[in-house]
């Protein structure tokens, strides 16, 4: 495209700039258009989990439902309550969407298609993730509403806490591939990392779910306690943008899972036919996303003390141990510094898989033991002190 523009008569720099700008628009518009389809898909899935039919009126299978909703929300009055901080209030939904779409800049759609292949790709993902937290805080603070403010505090506690296991999980593919570039990580996955590091995938999915703020970790916008939290005062299209950001973020976590652990665009003939790679990536992402929706639809919301305990007293130690053990095993097996084919990767992957199974067993045993002791303790206290169960249940550390 650069060559074409230069032929028309643009200077080289300008041609590059225009080509890049076109790339940006393609990637960002794709992300937002995908939302229209994705929301429909998620609603259908959610309906299935709850034994409903889901949207089925507008268009075939209710496909155009989201478009209809968009039109409706466009025509809704945009109410701003008294005492809001206008600038911050209006910027928050925009920043929320921007923070998510920015991630798509480093997503390798296929062997040849990538927005930009940064050499700090994975780190860039983290950096962009930080902006999402800022958007939530901005929305919560500017709304001049107690619930929104409380939600902003919770956002700090939750989003920020779960970033730690998220980073610990991200470090494993970086360590295994010896690169932070997303494209390079995909290329290095001669065998998908999900086989070498299943525990890491689990960590990533759990912390990812918490980062999106979806059930069972939807404490930011708990309807029954915080009446939907930080976007309580938003209406009309501004609310719509928060909705889009949440959906897109959820799907993006699916995409990242696919890239980092499920081999990204890898698949038969994907190296030669770019569109095939794109197709594979979307299938894998949708699968990962489906898992997230499944979890969301199945589990009830956790309490905030449980949420934070679970992070700091379980996920973080497990993540640290996981990282060090993977690093140790990786060093112990000879030849791991140069893996260039499927054959090279078999032995390390099998060894890591075994170690992971062992870790799963140990963690499972620890958890079972802990659960038994906790139950025994509560039962003893209930029996001994004759207290109502509710006051004791939350007393555990």
């Amino acid at each position, binding site marked *: 495209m650069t060559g074409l523009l230069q032929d028309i008569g643009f200077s080289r720099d300008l041609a590059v700039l225009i080509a890049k700008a076109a790339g*940006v628009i393609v990637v*960002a518009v794709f992300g937002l258009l995908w939302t229209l389809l994705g929301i429909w898909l998620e609603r259908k899935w959610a309906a299935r989990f709850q034994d409903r039919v889901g949207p089925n009126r507008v268009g075939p299978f209710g496909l155009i439902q989201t478009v209809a909703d968009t039109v409706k929300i466009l*025509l809704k009055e945009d109410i701003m309550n008294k005492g809001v901080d206008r600038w911050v209030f209006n910027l928050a939904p925009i920043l929320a969407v921007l923070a998510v*779409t920015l991630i798509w800049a480093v997503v390798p759609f296929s062997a040849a298609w990538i927005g930009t292949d940064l050499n700090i790709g994975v780190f860039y993902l983290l950096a962009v993730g930080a902006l999402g937290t800022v958007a939530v805080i901005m929305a919560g603070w500017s709304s001049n509403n107690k619930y929104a403010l409380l939600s902003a505090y919770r956002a700090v*506690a939750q989003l920020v806490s779960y970033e730690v296991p998220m980073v610990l999980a991200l470090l494993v593919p970086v360590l295994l591939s010896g690169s932070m570039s997303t494209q390079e990580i995909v290329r290095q996955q001669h065998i998908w990392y999900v086989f070498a590091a299943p525990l890491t995938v689990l960590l990533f999915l759990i912390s990812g779910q918490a980062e999106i703020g979806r059930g069972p970790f939807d404490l930011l916008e708990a309807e029954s306690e915080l009446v939907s939290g930080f976007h309580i005062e938003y209406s009309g299209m501004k609310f719509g943008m928060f909705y889009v950001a949440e959906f897109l973020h959820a799907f993006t976590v699916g995409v990242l899972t696919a890239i980092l652990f499920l081999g990204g665009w890898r698949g038969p003939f994907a190296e030669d036919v770019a569109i095939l790679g794109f197709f594979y990536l979307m299938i894998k992402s949708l699968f990962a996303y489906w898992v997230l929706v499944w979890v969301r639809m199945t589990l009830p919301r956790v309490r905030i003390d449980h949420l934070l305990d679970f992070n*700091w007293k379980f996920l973080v130690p497990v993540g640290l141990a996981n990282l060090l053990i993977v690093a140790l095993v990786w060093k112990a097996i000879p030849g791991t510094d140069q893996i260039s084919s499927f054959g090279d990767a078999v032995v390390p992957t099998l060894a890591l898989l075994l170690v992971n199974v062992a870790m799963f067993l140990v963690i499972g045993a620890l958890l079972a033991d802990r659960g038994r002791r906790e139950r025994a303790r509560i039962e003893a206290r209930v029996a001994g002190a004759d207290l109502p169960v509710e006051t004791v249940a939350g007393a555990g550390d």
Partner: protein
Amino acid sequence: MNLNEWIFIGLFFALGWALPATPIVLGKILAPKRPNQVKQQTYECGVEMVGSPWTQFRAQYYIFALVFLVFDVELVFLFPWALAYNQLGLFALFEMTVFIFLLVVALVYTWRKGALRWS
């Protein structure tokens, strides 16, 4: 280093605003705008707002952000380490274990102090 890779990010930052902003502005144009006193009240589950939202909140939130800050800085060190790991010896792993151990000591202290407890 090739700055061209970053032009894309810069442009994304510059143009990315437009995509969510367009529907919001469109909404502003298309949607009705009839504000009144009651409509603009701050939502508080149907009752009128009691006091200011700026009541005192617990400092507990601060402790979690604090622990996160310390972890975040440490994790920054882990990235170049993980990146170079294939070219490093076993000693590097030992150093990192010491590094993480010190961090875990701090976490355990916070834990034992009861600061990570919500109640």
